[in-house]
């Protein structure tokens, strides 16, 4: 036992508690104060985070730091407080109501093993709002919202935290003499800890359901929800794991931009809007990047949008590239100057755009896609014969090469330079091989 710093951590000027006569909350707060005394903590080392409900009145009774937030979210604040300042001891006081509305946070904090201690004031109903049923209300209970008896299976709060990886999980009652010791153990566990403390709500649940201390103990037995330690395992807390990750990450370079320096020139005198329309796996967006980067290397300005279904490995893949002698203001395309149809999925996807195109615009199409409903001039993608073997894997890079030759927007060398500057060496080697077909 550490040297005591304070005799009590209760702000005595705020006593008596405003809880109902016989309510167990005061007992648990007393146990917490005794535990803090056992630990010899300075009040500035402790943050008490309270949820909403009668338990949410608790923060004012402590001389420590306190945080009182939204219903069900106490564990999220507590985790944030601890993550930023691991020197603080963070305790969450939450009811069965908070564990219902914030159940998601409870089980995820257990999974993350964030180093906070959660004390659940579990009195089987919503005391503050009139005794409505909560997630832990026993079956057949009478409450204002279950006037003929509740039919939902009660949630096992401690059990939930246990199966979701919580390191220190216990069940107790407000009447347990060793509650301060258990709280001390929970607070000293490196990782997530939770004590599901069963209590009596004398204003509502007790009187409506004839549920005294004896009945509560009987219910515990009948549900096979034994009190005591349920789980005590050591695994690295979030803080420990994250610190390790920070050490690893500190050796990596910070993010930086991809800067391209103008090396080539271009005669382009007005913006051109190009749409590449293919299918997933055809590296359409990558080809769009190559065109945009080559234009940038040639002193032009560009924007590149990508469009694909959320299931990215199937369906269409579309890249929209605007290339302009002036910085691009409007980056949308409702009528392309040039559309490239690489796969039926892409062709279908941009049908609205190709239909809007005029005679002076051009649609280039891969084999079999030459019947777009469009007034545009439609021309086949006439790749060099030697390139035929690339069609299956590298058709988009071929299309980028072909467009560069046909449209003469920037030197072909710029496209090759773009490959070298923006692509990983292995990919660049492949694509330089693809582009070589246009130079033989």
């Amino acid at each position, binding site marked *: 036992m550490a040297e005591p710093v304070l005799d009590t951590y209760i702000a005595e000027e705020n006593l008596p508690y405003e809880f109902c006569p016989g309510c167990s909350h005061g007992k648990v707060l007393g146990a917490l104060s005794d535990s803090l005394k056992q630990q010899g903590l300075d009040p500035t080392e402790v943050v008490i985070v309270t949820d909403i409900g009668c338990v949410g009145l608790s923060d004012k009774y402590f001389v420590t730091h306190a945080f009182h937030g939204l219903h069900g979210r106490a564990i999220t604040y507590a985790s*944030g407080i601890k993550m*930023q300042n691991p020197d603080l001891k963070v305790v969450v006081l939450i009811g069965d109501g908070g564990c219902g509305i914030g159940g998601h946070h409870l089980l995820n904090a257990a999974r993350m093993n964030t180093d906070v201690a959660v004390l659940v004031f579990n009195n089987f109903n919503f005391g503050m709002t009139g005794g409505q049923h909560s997630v832990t209300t026993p079956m057949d209970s009478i409450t204002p919202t279950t006037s003929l008896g509740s039919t939902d299976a009660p949630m096992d709060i401690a059990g939930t935290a246990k199966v979701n990886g919580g390191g220190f999980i216990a069940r107790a009652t407000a009447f347990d003499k060793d509650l301060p010791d258990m709280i001390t153990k929970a607070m000293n566990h490196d990782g997530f800890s939770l004590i599901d403390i069963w209590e009596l709500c004398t204003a509502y649940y007790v009187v409506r359901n004839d549920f005294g201390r004896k009945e509560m103990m009987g219910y515990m037995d009948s549900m096979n929800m034994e009190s005591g330690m349920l789980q005590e395992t050591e695994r690295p807390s979030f803080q420990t794991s994250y610190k390790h990750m920070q050490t*690893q990450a500190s050796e990596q370079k910070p993010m930086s931009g991809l800067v391209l320096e103008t090396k080539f020139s271009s005669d382009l005198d007005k913006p051109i809007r190009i749409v590449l329309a293919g299918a997933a796996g055809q590296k359409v967006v990558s080809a769009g990047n190559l065109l*945009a980067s080559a234009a*940038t290397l040639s002193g032009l300005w560009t924007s590149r949008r990508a469009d694909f279904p*959320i299931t990215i490995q199937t369906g269409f893949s579309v890249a929209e590239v605007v290339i302009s002698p002036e910085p*691009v*203001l409007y980056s949308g395309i409702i009528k392309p100057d040039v559309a490239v149809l690489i796969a039926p999925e892409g062709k279908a996807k941009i049908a609205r755009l190709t239909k809007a195109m005029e005679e002076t615009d051009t649609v280039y199409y891969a084999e079999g896609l030459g019947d777009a409903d469009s007034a545009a001039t439609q021309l086949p993608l006439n790749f060099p014969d030697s390139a035929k073997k690339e069609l299956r894997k590298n058709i988009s890079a071929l299309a980028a090469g072909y467009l560069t030759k046909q449209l003469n927007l920037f030197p072909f060398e710029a496209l090759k330079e773009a490959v070298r500057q923006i692509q990983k060496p292995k990919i660049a080697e492949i694509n330089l091989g693809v582009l070589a077909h246009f130079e033989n």
Partner: protein
Amino acid sequence: MNNNRREMVDGAAAIARGALDAGCNFYAGYPITPASGILTHMLRELPKVGGIGLQGEDEISSIGHCIGAATSGATVFTASSGPGLSLYSENIGLAIMMEIPLVITISQRLGPSTGAATASAQGDIQFMRWCNSGGYPVIVLSPTNIPESYHLTKRAFKLAKRFRNPVFIATDKETVMTTESVAEAEMIDAPDWPEVPDEPVGKPLDPYQVNGTIHHYTGSSHTEEGHITKDPDIIAEFNERLKNKIESRVDEISLVKPDLDVGAETLILSYGVTARSMEAAVIQLRSLGEKVSALTVFSLWPIPEKKIQDCLKGVKRIIIPEMNHGQYRHEIQRLTNSDVDLVGVNRVDTFLITPEEIMEAYHG
């Protein structure tokens, strides 16, 4: 400016870099297109600089972690889209009540609900302003392009600290997910905007610290020391202060870019990505000999009323293009005389508003 060095960058990277350069050391967020790029960058970058980045189990948890971390002294940030803003909203009220400096990026997509995920939109402009119970003021900044995304993000952190309040960056799918070439210098050189003063307008946030001062942070009505109170006078004074700390400093927060043509009777007013179509339309209209003025609004909330009214002398018509049903137009209506004609150019069909549509509206 060395115009020959150009960066290929998207808004997500620009916003993440802005946050990091502003000293952000805590990020929590939940994946959602079109804001996930920011999440990815922040979670990868923060541990490199000793910060913390995490993916919460939902948006509620994410913003909760941010608020908690801020009370321990972190400089916090989160990002989402309209659906996530719905889940943030109760905690945004908490952040206002606790006076937490909190930067939130909302990358707008077309709703309602899941909507046309994920097409660009500007439908959350009013939602950001009014998402908190009680309707307390927030600050909303809206970049029109990628360099502004970087610089306005940095500014958002300064404003959040100065006002101890949530500050939004209102952007959209187009700006966040489109890769563009931008002059490298534009990403580095600070724009010619007035500096945000460093000192807070009230008491600075004093975080929880071992051996520090004891603090109570609470979402209930409280005294300045954080003690819950039911005293009507104290509650009224506190709530008035929350309102006035921002609304009495509108002019300081106001940030607009006027491009006025002397004698023009038409002003086009826009914001966000749509302001770029406005700029393109204005260039074309002027090349045709038309007299037309333009006003880009960067600080959407609080409404920069004085700065807007300064641009209305002699204006008989205001054209307001925006990708919603006229959410900002209705605000401008309050600022104008009844003889000024307000014309909306609105699209909610997944497409950006084109310069041609704005020109058509001009020609009426």
